[in-house]
């Protein structure tokens, strides 16, 4: 149950970071903060796709609930992100990474590849978040600046969080 415990710790700590950041940092409506996808991104590789989906759903709902967002908004986007995650991981990582690594983090994949992995998955998350938020394509072009700015900010935040929380410890 060692990995189970660390999953719970990472779940709670990222949820806490998310609540604090979205409560304290306010850049206006142009930016929404989303740090919690890092939790789903760094679930152990041997987690089944079903497990990924269930974790994504729980994390999404918890994030929605504690940040006063619309319930279901983050969970629907995070589910789609979890669905494509194994494919993205396979495409980004080297072959050897799959067998002997447990957690797809910055220390295991290398900073450059990890950044690419985060960026692709966050793009998927943000596109579907934006679609779910305005419920349709009508506002999509209109929301594009919001999407791009948020994407840049969140990628940076996630890389900082990953570097600060996990990268240094493993080296």
């Amino acid at each position: 149950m060692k990995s189970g415990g660390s999953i719970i710790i990472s779940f709670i700590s990222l949820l806490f970071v998310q609540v604090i950041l979205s409560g304290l940092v306010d850049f206006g409506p142009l930016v929404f903060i989303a740090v919690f996808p890092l939790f789903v991104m760094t679930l152990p590789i041997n987690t089944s796709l079903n497990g990924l989906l269930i974790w994504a759903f729980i994390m999404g709902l918890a994030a929605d609930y504690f940040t006063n967002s619309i319930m279901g908004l983050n969970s629907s986007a995070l589910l789609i992100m979890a669905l494509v995650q194994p494919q993205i991981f396979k495409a980004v990582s080297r072959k050897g990474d799959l067998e002997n690594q447990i957690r797809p983090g910055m220390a295991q994949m290398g900073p450059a590849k990890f950044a690419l992995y985060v960026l692709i998955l966050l793009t998927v998350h943000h596109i579907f978040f934006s679609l779910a938020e305005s419920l349709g394509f009508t506002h999509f072009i209109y929301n594009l600046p919001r999407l791009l700015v948020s994407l840049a900010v969140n990628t940076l935040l996630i890389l900082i969080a990953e570097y600060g929380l996990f990268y240094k410890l493993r080296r």
Partner: protein
Amino acid sequence: MWGRSPILRGLATIILFLALEVVSILFIANDSVFQRVKISGAAMYLKSGVSSVTSDIRYYFWLKEHNEVLLRENQRLKEQLAIYRTKGEMADTLEGFLPTTPDFTYIPAKIISNSTNKLNNFIIINRGSRHGVKKDMGVITPEGVVGVISSVSDNYAYIISFLNINQSVSARIEPSGAFGPLIWEGRSSDYATLAEVPYHIKVSVGDTVFTSGFSTIYPPDVPLGTIRRSTVIRGSHHKFQVKLFQNFGSLRYVSVVVNNKKDELNQFLKENEVRR
């Protein structure tokens, strides 16, 4: 055997994904129901505890600005008091003709949770049904409108912020007297849009926008903002960009508007509808 076949496992995953996704979308669609659940009980207590810590920290950094707002309001109230004093002396002779209850009374409240960075923003205040707050009441500050109460628990109320793409406020432009709906378009929390003003009405940049008082939610003459820019829509209508007075990021104290004549007015409307 079930677990071994890759097709069946793939199918199970797809079904799980679709099921969870449908649940999420149902959550989004029924959000108002869940907010009512969210408001109640221990969860609300926990959430407001977390929110009040973060809002306390934010509040500290806005202290100076709050002081200025209070000073300005004080000044305005002093001026009004002077006017009423002189009027009061006159009114002694007209006693009995004056209405006994004012149209609007106010419940002061403190914000414990506020968001400005979403397309559907919400606010939680520390006044609830115990203090006389009810659903569909308006919430204002001296600087403008804040929103409408969406649900109420004993000690807390949940406000749909004006910063919500589904909200609109009936507004009037002074000095021309033109009116139209003021809506927030989801871009910056400092600006809103006033549309549907006929083209022939003369409006200049810098004119002040007030609430019109055409609804039972907000009192008339609450200042909202000033006209910044105008565009003409299809040659027949103005569309104005309005710079809001209200700084939603630094909101701390608000007043809940109690319309004392609301029931009477609604009753009156209903009677007339029946007659027609």
